[in-house]
């Protein structure tokens, strides 16, 4: 496969020499089952003050490529080609040279700030470590520098924060600390591996603002690895698209995102759910069923608390009321910690309510005995976020899908097998998958199995807890499409929990917005997502990036204006104050 460079020569911006360059990089991993060719001849440059986005699905080799720059690949990897960081060739350095290079010349921002920080060391210890290792500052001087770094990334009261542990900070603040660590030794280039994937959408927007000001003010080069096209549009100057270890397309962000040349890039962009363009769900379908039977799910002033040892209980859901009618998809949106998954679990009867009523398909959950509960559960299906975790790894696909039939003693061996085959057809999986094990399937296929299992007993209510957030964009698109068509075919009611507004926009009839366990706003999709009344909803909507650089720039400016209106300040790197 040849690399398709659509950068026209006049557009090339080369402010100085590249701070990071890959030339004909090839990486091969020796595994139990023979060699895996992960990267097949990638050439790429990052210049100072430039953001290069490396885009591709999981397994395309984008993280492997970036890891070679730090010389951090595992022992079974073989690398050929040259990787230059500044004027150093990574392959020529010994261990001591590599250690000196890491931090000084190149630094990394990781995906999950909770695991990137050591939970038993204070923020101060971790920030000063790099400073002392590289001989930049020691003792109280290092502490002062650390406080300055924290102030730069916009963490209030830095002196106090230095004495705190990672768990005492919020996710966004933790990622700021990781960024502060990355810039502590003033590196020439930063590798940011999915820096915002684990964060909420509003926090993501803040972190992206911070990274953008970083390259503007410190002239750092950034290699941004992401699968989120919205983030690319928001941040990148240039984009490189990877497919199965090959670079298939490079160009400026505008060229690649608005006028993609390679067929794969076009498919990737086409699959991105676009906020505001959602017309996937016809509103007619819901109206047909409404009013004929009792609603599928009624939550009435629901309160859920988690008991904590030695402290007063934590109120995860507070006074929440909404209704899911038959044949209707209700989208439950909120950031992490808003209690949306808790409500989903409660609707499945897995968590008891402290106060208020949960009425499912006309039955009061709390008043049922064990037998009635089992009978009711027959009528509820569930799809979880991570299909790898939600299917028993010891069960072949056929058995996993048939499990609900066995539990409820429906039919015999033969009719069960027939039913499983029908369901495999319905979720567009080949029937030969019957005897396969989950670990042999890709993420999208596993989620299809998971959906098939949820539909086995033809449920009247389906609870879907972030069913697509663990999937790649293109896979997500096909799963959502399948989901919509299945919903129209089977006509089940659905409580769809998600943090992604664009996904909700694609398929929900009604939207409920949650914040800190309380409902902020609810109503028809069009009302909530097009004409939001509440500030919080507006903020959420403004923070969701779209995969078009020009439109995204517009949205970014709009968001900054909105923040100014609401009295918040825009996050940026504070240098020299």
């Amino acid at each position, binding site marked *: 496969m040849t690399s398709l460079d659509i950068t026209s020569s006049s557009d090339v911006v080369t402010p100085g020499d590249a701070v990071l360059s890959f030339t004909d990089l090839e990486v091969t991993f*020796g595994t*139990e089952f023979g060699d895996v060719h992960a990267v097949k001849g990638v050439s790429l440059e990052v210049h100072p003050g430039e953001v290069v986005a490396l885009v591709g699905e999981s397994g395309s080799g984008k993280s492997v490529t970036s890891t070679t720059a730090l010389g951090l690949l*595992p*022992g*079974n990897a073989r690398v050929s080609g040259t990787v230059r960081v500044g004027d150093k060739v990574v392959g020529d350095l010994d261990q001591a040279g590599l250690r000196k290079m890491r931090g000084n010349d190149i630094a990394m921002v990781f995906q999950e700030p909770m695991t990137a920080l050591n939970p038993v060391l204070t923020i101060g210890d971790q920030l000063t470590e790099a400073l002392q290792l590289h001989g930049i500052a020691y003792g109280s001087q290092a502490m002062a520098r650390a406080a300055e770094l924290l102030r730069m990334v916009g963490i209030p009261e830095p002196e106090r924060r230095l004495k705190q542990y990672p768990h005492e900070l919020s996710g966004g603040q933790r990622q700021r600390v990781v960024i502060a660590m990355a810039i502590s030794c003033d590196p020439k280039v930063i590798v940011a591996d999915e820096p915002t994937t684990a964060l909420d959408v509003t926090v993501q927007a803040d972190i992206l603002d911070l990274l953008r000001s970083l390259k503007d003010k410190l002239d750092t080069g950034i290699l941004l690895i992401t699968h989120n096209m919205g983030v690319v549009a928001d941040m990148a100057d240039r984009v490189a698209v990877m497919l199965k270890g090959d670079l298939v397309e490079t160009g400026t962000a505008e060229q690649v995102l608005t006028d993609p040349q390679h067929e794969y890039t076009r*498919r990737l962009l086409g*699959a991105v759910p676009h906020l505001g363009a959602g017309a996937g769900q016809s509103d007619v379908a819901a109206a047909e069923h409404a009013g004929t039977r009792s609603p599928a799910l009624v939550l009435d002033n629901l309160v859920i608390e988690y008991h904590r040892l030695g402290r007063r209980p934590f109120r995860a859901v507070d006074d929440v009321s909404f209704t899911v009618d038959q044949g209707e998809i209700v989208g439950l949106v909120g950031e992490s910690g808003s209690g949306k998954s808790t409500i989903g*679990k409660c609707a*499945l*009867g*897995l968590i008891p309510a402290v106060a208020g009523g949960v009425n499912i398909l006309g039955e009061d959950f709390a008043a049922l005995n064990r037998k009635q*509960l*089992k*009978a009711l*559960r*027959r009528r*509820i299906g*569930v799809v*979880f*976020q*991570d299909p790898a*975790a*939600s*299917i*028993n*790894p*010891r069960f*072949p696909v056929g058995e996993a899908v048939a*499990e*609900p039939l066995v*539990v*409820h003693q429906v039919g015999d061996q033969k009719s069960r097998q027939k039913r499983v085959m029908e369901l495999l057809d319905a979720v*567009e999986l*080949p029937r030969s998958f019957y005897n*396969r*094990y989950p*670990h*042999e*399937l*890709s993420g*999208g*296929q596993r989620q299809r199995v*998971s959906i098939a*299992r949820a539909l086995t*007993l033809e449920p009247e209510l389906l*609870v879907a807890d972030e069913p697509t957030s663990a999937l790649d964009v*293109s*896979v997500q*698109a*096909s799963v959502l499409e399948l989901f919509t068509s299945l919903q129209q075919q089977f006509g089940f009611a659905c409580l769809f929990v998600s943090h992604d507004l664009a996904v909700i926009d694609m398929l929900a009839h009604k939207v409920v917005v949650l914040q800190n366990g309380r409902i902020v706003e609810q109503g028809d999709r069009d009302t909530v997502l097009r004409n939001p009344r509440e500030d919080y909803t507006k903020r959420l909507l403004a923070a969701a990036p779209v995969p078009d650089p020009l439109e995204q720039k517009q949205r970014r400016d709009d968001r900054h204006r909105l923040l100014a209106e609401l009295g918040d300040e825009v996050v940026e790197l504070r240098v020299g104050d």
Partner: protein
Amino acid sequence: MTDAETVAIEEKSYSQGQLVRRRFFRHKGAIVAMVVLAVVVLVAFTSIGIGPIPGWWDKNPFSQYEKIGTGAPTWAHPFGQDTIGKDYFALVMLGTQKSIIIALGVGLISTLIGTVIGAFAGYYRGWVESALMRLTDLLIVIPLLVLAAVLGKIASPWGIWGLTLMLGLVTWTGLARLVRGEVLSLRERDFVVAATAVGTGARRIIFKHVLPNAVGTIIVSATLAISAAILLETSLSFLGFGVQPPDTSLGRLISDYQTAFTTRPWLFWWPGLMILAIALSVNFIGDGLRDAFDPRQNRTKA
């Protein structure tokens, strides 16, 4: 989009069991140990036969034969003869048979009890867990050898089967704790939550969903329990609390002939070697199984 997804499927696929088997057969130590153990078991059971079934060895462990010299190993008596002229090869084979039966029996019983108790404690939590785990603690704080000696003495009228049962009843504690820990983490996994949400009963979840996923831990501990049981039986018999005459076992043989150690060392070495061979190979197999079940521990072979 499915064309991109199916690519991975066309390669040869392995089920989890196949993967484990593949990794196990790459572990050279474990394979050698399996062969050694198989040979020991085969020879022990075919040479003098079991019960009424005769074996290929022409001498039996109970008759006295004419002594050749001091009774040192000869072609007629490869393991030598004891003080009164019994064929020591036949005796050692009989002892090996009994020791293996006891070890396997103890391994089986303790694994069964440990798994069930650990699984119920881990899954149900609450008072069930408290009760079961305090019982486990109680058994752990009593010195194993003393408890086994007392119970072994009580069970002595039922021969080696009684001893097997008693040893099984006191050695399950370690496994119960391991399984409980494993179940505690497994019960929070999404597939268990998914099963609960479908309406699956607790028993089915434990035995169909949770325990099969803990099978690695269980099998590995079971093999190690077997080798521990051999040593425990040997110690007990050596102290005189284990296998009682007319039955014999490897530990019993050593104890019976301990006074002959300086004059007729073969009476000591042969049963000792058998104990060593069995315990070592079982341990090696356990090692191989652990590596096979937990590929993350694998050292990379680049």
